[in-house]
């Protein structure tokens, strides 16, 4: 059962434009969502998170939106820069079980063209 889904394997965007990465989930018990960014040959690094009691969280060029009724969240990057080219993972902690374990989506490869 894939509880967190990223249905777009890849996205290509022109530098300076908006990048929108999408994530869907099935478990209504998730109370936080996190986005990680991963460059080749490196580990994932935390980017931004959102609590389920909020519908928006912003940090500089990065904004995450949460639509609980649709069980959908999205990461907006404005403006997109070539250095944003990476794999982006959506994740949620399975807090029904002890240990802050994360459930990850399959990831979306973002390519920002200059």
């Amino acid at each position: 059962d894939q509880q967190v889904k990223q249905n777009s394997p890849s996205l290509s965007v022109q530098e300076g434009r908006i990048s929108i990465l999408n994530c869907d989930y099935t478990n209504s018990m998730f109370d936080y969502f996190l986005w990680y960014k991963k460059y080749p040959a490196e580990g994932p690094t935390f980017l931004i998170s959102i609590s389920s009691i909020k519908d928006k969280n912003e940090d500089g060029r990065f904004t995450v939106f949460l639509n609980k009724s649709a069980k959908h969240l999205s990461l907006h990057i404005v403006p997109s820069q070539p250095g944003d080219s990476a794999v982006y993972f959506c994740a949620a902690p399975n807090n029904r079980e002890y240990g802050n374990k994360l459930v990850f989506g399959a990831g979306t490869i973002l390519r920002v063209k200059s």
Partner: protein
Amino acid sequence: NAGVTQTPKFRVLKTGQSMTLLCAQDMNHEYMYWYRQDPGMGLRLIHYSVGEGTTAKGEVPDGYNVSRLKKQNFLLGLESAAPSQTSVYFCASSPKTEGGTPQHFGDGTRLSIL
């Protein structure tokens, strides 16, 4: 400022060989995790630990064993390597807090089983 360090970075094994992957963190985190990343599947949890001397199974534990004899170290063992265990392995750690606390990842170990 090391964070999470994984050794080795690369390894090639023959089917049936054994090996141990080492993860070390210098952030005094209680929780530690081992994930594997395969193409199109995101990160899947193998085993995790909520404290020194404790371990627990994750989503895909078969064929792996772990030990956490010291708080800062988390070892992942393959007793008899199989081609299906060819993957990139990531270690992560986090403080003993729930509610979406980000995990910190190492840079991974790329393991090939021939």
